[in-house]
């Protein structure tokens, strides 16, 4: 049970880190579909 919760927390943390990283990358890199 604890393992399952730990895995879920870890997954959420990873997803949040990914979104943060993407947001930073997109800030620098201009949108190209014009």
């Amino acid at each position, binding site marked *: 049970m604890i393992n399952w919760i730990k895995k879920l927390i870890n997954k959420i943390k990873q997803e949040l880190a*990914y979104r943060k*990283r*993407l947001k930073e*990358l*997109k800030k*620098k*890199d*201009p*949108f*190209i*579909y*014009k």
Partner: protein
Amino acid sequence: MYWVYMSKINVFIAGGCSFTFGHELSDNLNGRTPSMKTWAHGLYEGYKYPGTIYHYELAATPGTGNPGIARRVFKAVAEAHKNPEQNIEAVVVMWSFNSRYDWAMPRHRNLEDTRWATMSPWDTNMRAEERHNALSGSEAQQEQWKRRQELMIETGVKPFAEAIYKHAANEYHETYLSWKSIIWLQNILEKKGIKYMFTLADNSLFYKDFAHHKDQDGLMSALHDEIDFTKWFSFGERMMGFNQWALMEDYPRGTTHPLDKAHEDAVKLMMPMYKKIKGGVRS
């Protein structure tokens, strides 16, 4: 030897991303027509000899990254080099953002040369709100985005882009790939005796805020030492890029690119260095 220039087609090769393709400039129709008002075309037009035939070879593609830029410029150089009627006049490259990847995928008719895919952070899943903001509510842009997304799914690039940015993308590797591409192209041009000038769109190619990427470890420091900065033009301190300079100087902008005036003034700034690299007077 002047007769070489007179008797052959002198090819000027320009490599880069949308800043070299000329996105959003006044003659860039629907984002598809390469502009003749870019910094690169300005250098090409500004240094010609009368009675000589010239050709402007644009090896720039919007949205591409540095490995893709190096590959396309190399391809253009190789094609011009094997043509006995052509002489490579000069190569100019504006290096782009580190965060874009270039990958040879399993063959598909809709990929560049049936193989090559460019991936940028924008190719990952986007929330509708984020997309709307990025596209400024333009219907034409939304339509282009939709088309590209369909193509990305069809060619299998989309899930790959998602996976790369989710699990593997990091600044160290991106910088390493960029610098490796720059050194690779630089050494090929040196070996072939082709005159070239490099510049950049953004100094994130070398810096993260104030920290230089070369200071990360010995490998990056050694790679950095291989780059010949005597052939580089930067727009200010700490290798300021064209886009940063245009922003700082408050030049008029489209959605994400500086407009005609910035390119026009960039040519004026770059021309002395370009002339110096070209050798000034021909024998």
